[in-house]
């Protein structure tokens, strides 16, 4: 999942990535491994589980001027759920949500 906040003119304020997948290892060292021939067991599992809600609360800190006032008050936030197959270059979007978020009331 990639969550991005951008100003109205497209300047990126911040980007946060969360990865959801089981992580295997040879169990002979501390490194994650790919390939069934290398993995002997999982050592961590952040994948989406049945009947469980994967909840995140992510924050983007907005820049302030020398008086402490925010210089950006409105951003466009995009939350994109992406599926990668075998490597980060072979991917596609599952779903994408965009919201305008502002400090103004």
């Amino acid at each position, binding site marked *: *999942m990639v*969550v991005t*906040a951008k100003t109205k003119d497209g300047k990126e*304020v911040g980007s946060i990535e969360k990865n*959801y*997948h*089981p992580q*295997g290892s040879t169990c002979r060292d501390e490194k994650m491994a790919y*390939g*069934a*021939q*290398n*993995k*002997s*067991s*999982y050592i961590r*599992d952040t*994948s*989406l*589980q*049945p*009947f*469980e*809600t*994967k*909840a*995140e*609360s*992510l*924050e*983007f*800190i*907005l820049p*302030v001027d020398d008086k*402490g006032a*925010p210089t950006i*008050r*409105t*951003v466009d*936030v995009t*939350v994109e*759920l992406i*599926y990668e*197959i*075998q490597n980060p270059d*072979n991917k*596609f*979007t*599952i*779903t994408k*949500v965009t*919201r305008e*978020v*502002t*400090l*103004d009331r």
Partner: protein
Amino acid sequence: MRILRFMLPLVLVASASFAVAADAPKKATSIDELAKMFDSTGCKECHPEIYAQWEKSHHARPFMGVAGGMMLTPVVTASAFKVDKPEQATLKTFPCFKCHLPQALRWAEDSVAQELAAALMANPQDKAKVAKLQITCLVCHSERAIVHRLKDGNPEPGVIYGSKEGAHDSTTHPKLKKSVILKQAIFCGQCHGTGPNFEFEYPIQCAVLYGSYQNSYLPGGGQKSCQECHMAKTKEGVPDHLIAPNFDDKEATAALLAKSIHLTVDTLGYQWLRKANTYTPKIVVNTKITHDAGHRIPDG
């Protein structure tokens, strides 16, 4: 006379041994032989929709990976199971056969492994040869149709195991018998994994969908079988033998995932106060993801 009487029993025993050997099914010594033993092109005539669905599935290309990738290459060239020369390959140096080519376990000689190793180690690789090795109709509907072999015996030659008993319009497989496991998750669990395969000299772990199904989905209250979700009847009225997803079809896979994965997003813009007169302006994004699958996502 005495010599003849002494020799006769030996001759009879030898003949009996030859008779047994001649009747015993012969294992395949080449990729072509193994492919021919399990060739299911004959099923296409009467089951064209199912065959067309299967042709697009990963079962039709268990060694081709995604986008035609030769997934066995690192196994034979770089893993703990690697060989220096194709002639050194055996069925044991391809632990992947357990699930990716289960018919080889009972019906292939080591020479099949050697021929496969040669195809993988060639430059260029012989993809056409590797592609001949498939999980065909006869693998699921015969070779893997029985798990309770102590009670039900091995699959019988000439029999197709399905959901019915009776005659089958086929010269090679004229009989139908019911497989008690065909519509149950355990059928898929034979190959779709529960955890590390400790029976090998170097434990390997591939997909563990069935483990996730048993240990997460069922305890959570889930009650559907793999087949209910992945082999629902298509508009042609047959169980879908594509058994989605087909990862080479990104559009269809994305649609399947979008249907089963649910994302909610809530946002807030405010200024956080840590201490007097020191505000930190923040954009908060709260996300929640749930899904309807009977196992972890991703897995395989």
